[in-house]
């Protein structure tokens, strides 16, 4: 399955093929949130990767946005059953950010401004599968959609794509994040409909 959709436009047959089981297509962009929307000034924004040995790598706003960026067009699949096709983003691939990070970790705990967390295998952030995004549809990412910067991991349910991303801890063992600790699936593959624990 390709992560970056080839950019064809919605004939019904294409649409159903792009829709994971149990999902419906929506054309608006529902706002889901587990708390108040944090307002983070770009001057104060920071993204930090902490390795399992305690090494810290951090980027401020200027450093993030001066890195080589990509403009992926992505299909989003939310566990609450909506899917949205052909969203366009601008951001930095995690391959770029993690290239200088020495680690033997297999897992990552992502954390956000406001306290949200989500966990995923490190390998799901690599090989062109994930970005720290700071642009949406040619503009800044609105705060309610996770701006100034959010994680994008479109091949997993959208709760893994943490809004207001602030940091990542690289871990040698898996730990559950905010929804993963309350009944939601640890991995969350929409094509295998891994919504809840045991799915």
């Amino acid at each position, binding site marked *: 399955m390709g992560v970056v959709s080839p950019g064809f436009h919605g004939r019904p047959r294409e649409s159903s093929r792009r829709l994971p089981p149990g999902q419906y297509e929506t054309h608006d962009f529902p706002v889901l*949130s*587990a708390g108040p929307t944090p307002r983070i000034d770009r001057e104060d924004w920071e993204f930090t990767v902490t390795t399992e040995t305690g090494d810290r790598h951090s980027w401020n706003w200027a450093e993030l946005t001066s890195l080589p960026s990509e403009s992926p067009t992505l299909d989003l699949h939310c566990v609450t059953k909506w899917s949205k096709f052909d969203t366009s983003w601008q951001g930095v691939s995690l391959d770029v950010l993690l290239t200088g990070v020495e680690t033997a970790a297999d897992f990552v705990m992502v954390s956000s401004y406001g306290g949200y967390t989500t966990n995923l295998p490190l390998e799901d952030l690599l090989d062109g599968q994930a970005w720290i995004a700071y642009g949406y549809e040619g503009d800044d990412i609105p705060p309610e959609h996770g701006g100034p910067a959010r994680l994008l991991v479109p091949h997993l349910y959208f*709760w893994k794509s943490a809004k207001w991303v602030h940091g990542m801890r690289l871990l040698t063992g898996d730990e559950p994040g905010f*929804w993963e600790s309350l009944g939601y699936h640890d991995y969350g593959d929409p094509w295998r409909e891994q919504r809840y624990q045991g799915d």
Partner: protein
Amino acid sequence: MADMNHHPDGHPASHGHGHGHEDSDEYEDGNAMAGPLSEIFAVDLTSAHGRCANCGITEPVARLRVYTRAPGLVGRCPHCAHVTLRMTRSPDNAWLDMSGTTTLRIPLTTT
């Protein structure tokens, strides 16, 4: 009713059955809570008063700020925004996390 032959803490079975009620190491399984729990969860918990584990302020559950446009329900303390109560539902299970609440005082109606 309870089987008093269990001595999980390694105490020899020297306590006679007749001393059961004086032995603080004795316990029953969770079914002993069935009556009290059914009483508690049958009431409207929104009238219960919860103490926030973060700031220590006690408020009725009904005053929590509950975020519902999410994969679950997230209740936050109205004073410090700490998550005090979370619930999710799958087709087969309900999940409840009260780790952000230290105590819950539940008014009981006596008739």
